[in-house]
């Protein structure tokens, strides 16, 4: 296990990075927020045209047919620039859910349209405050009719389809629903992260289809693992960006006649963040490797990657703003993008508390049979 990217992956990383450096600049993000825009649609089109959306979608369904590591590579660059496109919702959640749980016909119907960017997808799981869960779901699917409410749902205002976590016959299941129909109401929510819009979805007898190729609980477990790993890379990208933003600022800023970066308090602060980053990157690469080889224990690897990456990004985002001093608190500085985004990514798939339980339970279960044997 080398835990390193191969040449093709490095090249892909470079292509995505240079596109985003040009098209997802901090000023463009500020402009979007000012206009209260949900996304940069032009960038989305370019992303689709360059094959980035379909990177991990099989060629049979209109994708490029690369593996999960390529998706991780793209996610890292998304995180680095806080890129304002629904890549995570549409590709890392929706396309993955359909790949995991969709029938042949459902894959053939939706994956090519997700790969081409023609349709934006999203995933609706939580029903108000609280972590994503499998029990007590109020949203019901019966006879291909869907009723209930979901919130917050990312990118719902621009999505054409939504994979909804439902209760079907008393068991958790996944259903796919087209949002442009009379039984669906989309109500924007005022959210903390201004660059990823969320909404409430109300379904009243809406037409929907079960994604039933595998058991719902099993499908969701796999989807959560995969999403956590992709997002860990997004967080790693954000961590690295915030860390080096702080480094660059402290190098350029002089105080009491010398560089701010020459003070030990500042150096130790950023050294600690660097350690968190390296632990997060190493754990994320190991999780991607586990995903790639479909090894047993992906859940523990995913939880480890998510916990490491969440801590790293939150630390980097907070300390970046802190080390900028007062200027970091201004709209004109770029610290706030990461300061807000780090919070979103820390909670959107379940908090550290939730993933700690998932990790410890998984490790404990791994221990138990060994002891019994």
């Amino acid at each position, binding site marked *: *296990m*080398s*835990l*390193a990217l191969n040449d093709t992956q490095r090249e892909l990383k470079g292509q995505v990075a240079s596109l985003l450096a040009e098209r997802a600049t901090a000023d463009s993000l500020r402009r979007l927020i000012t206009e209260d825009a949900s996304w940069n649609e032009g960038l989305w089109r370019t992303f689709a045209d360059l094959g980035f959306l379909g990177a991990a979608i099989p060629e049979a369904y209109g994708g490029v047919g690369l593996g999960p590591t390529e998706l991780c590579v793209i996610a890292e660059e998304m995180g680095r620039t806080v890129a304002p496109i629904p890549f995570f919702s549409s590709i890392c959640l929706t396309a993955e859910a359909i790949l995991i749980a969709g029938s042949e016909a459902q894959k053939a119907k939706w994956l090519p349209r997700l790969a081409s960017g023609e349709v934006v997808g999203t995933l609706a799981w939580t029903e108000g405050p609280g972590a994503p869960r499998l029990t007590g779901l109020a949203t019901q699917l019966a006879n291909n009719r869907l009723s209930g409410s979901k919130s917050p749902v990312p990118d719902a205002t621009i999505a054409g389809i939504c994979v909804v976590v439902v209760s079907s016959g008393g068991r958790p299941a996944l259903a796919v629903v087209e949002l442009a129909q009379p039984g669906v109401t989309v109500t924007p929510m005022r959210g903390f992260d201004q660059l990823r819009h969320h909404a409430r979805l109300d379904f009243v007898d809406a037409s929907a289809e079960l994604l039933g190729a595998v058991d719902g609980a099993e499908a969701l477990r796999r989807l959560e693992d995969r999403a956590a790993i992709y997002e860990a890379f997004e967080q790693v990208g954000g961590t690295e960006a915030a*860390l080096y933003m702080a*480094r660059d600022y*402290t*190098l350029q800023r002089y105080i009491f006649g*010398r*560089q701010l*970066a*020459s*003070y*030990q308090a*500042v*150096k*130790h602060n*950023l*050294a*600690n963040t*660097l*350690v968190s980053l*390296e*632990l*997060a990157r*190493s*754990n994320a*690469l*190991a999780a991607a490797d586990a995903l790639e080889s479909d090894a047993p224990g992906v859940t523990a690897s995913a939880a*480890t990657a998510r*916990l*490491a990456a969440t*801590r790293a990004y939150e630390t980097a985002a907070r300390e970046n703003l802190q080390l900028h001093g007062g200027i970091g608190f201004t709209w004109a500085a770029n610290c706030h993008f990461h300061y807000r985004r780090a919070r979103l990514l820390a909670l959107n798939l379940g908090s*550290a*508390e939730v*993933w*700690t*339980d998932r*990790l*410890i339970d998984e*490790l*404990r279960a*791994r*221990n138990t049979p060994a*002891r019994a044997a």
Partner: protein
Amino acid sequence: MTETIVAPVLDEVAYRETARAWLAENAAEYAHPPSQAWSEDELVTRAKAWQKRKALAGYGAIAAPKAIGGAGLPTRFAQIFAGEERRYHTPFYIGQSIGLSMAMAVIRKHGAPEQFERFMKPAVAGDVSWCQLFSEPGAGSDLAAVRSRAVRQGDHWVLNGQKVWSSWAHRAGYGILLARTDGSVPKHDGLSFFVLDMKTPGVEVRPIRQITGKSDFNEVFFTDVVIPDANRIGAEGEGWACAMTVLSVERNQSGGGGSAASQVMGLIEKAAATPREGGVALDSAAVRAKLAQWWVEEQGLKHFGQRIQAALSAGEPPPPTLSMMKLVSATKAQQTNAFVMDLDEFGGLFGEPAEMEDDDVFYQYLWAACLRIAGGADEVLRNQLAERALGMPQDVRLDKGVPFDQIPS
């Protein structure tokens, strides 16, 4: 005893098989840990004998040149053998690795070929072990501040001063020594590097009683100690460069990979077996949060180590982030050993004397304090990460460019 020299094979698979077979035949008595811990005398006797046996079979210094008794093979063969040897509980003490890694590196790079052969042959053969004579009471993190002084008199030097924290100096035949040879120039420029024969008159080794009650370290005092100029490694004034060579070896060794077995898994098991009111300690969210963080650190370091190994095998130099391995693992060791005591509450501070051996939690908690200081204190490592990995400037140094004799102390 098998005394055949292993033929130079370049096939890694075959090499591993041969090594495995050789160990099966020669290390059989070390297949299991000793039923009773060896005394220091027995450890040293066994360790020297084991090194000699390896040397005779071509495993004594696999990556070292043949001129000193090595096998002259690429480093990866040494790694293969080490991996196989780790399956056994073969005897070893630090004095051997100081010779075979640190002294070897510095003499090879800065010394003359004659010196390399003269000093290294006995180390490879298992006859002589080494100690490091670097730190002083006034020179720890600021190592270039050493004031042990060597004064030239014709073809030899006369040394006076004191060293401290010298592991295994009481068993060492040779020491690698950093001494001041010129006080009139800035501190880094006035240092020279020597090999000291520890049997020279005027060398006195006194064990340090540590907080563990044991004495792994020593103070070493020098009174008019005569060192032949033929034992000087590198040019006069080249001492700091020599010391850096040694320290880079030390840093690359500390925390290099770690054991495959998870310690945190053991802690999870312990917490699951520790009764608490209405359940077990592992039910507590506070306990889970700590265990999860240590797991993240442990696994992160393991995978970080794999990344580094892959990079090194690809011929890349060790990255400046390497120093984070000891930084993270030493603090984690301190925290996890405290946690084991926490699990038993007040009772966790009491145990039978028989439990006070090396793997005991009391001992490990005390030893963790040493780990956070030795081989680069936490604070020094953070400076290194900031300066070498992040490219941040050095702190202001008031002694920069000042002749050593004029620096306040």
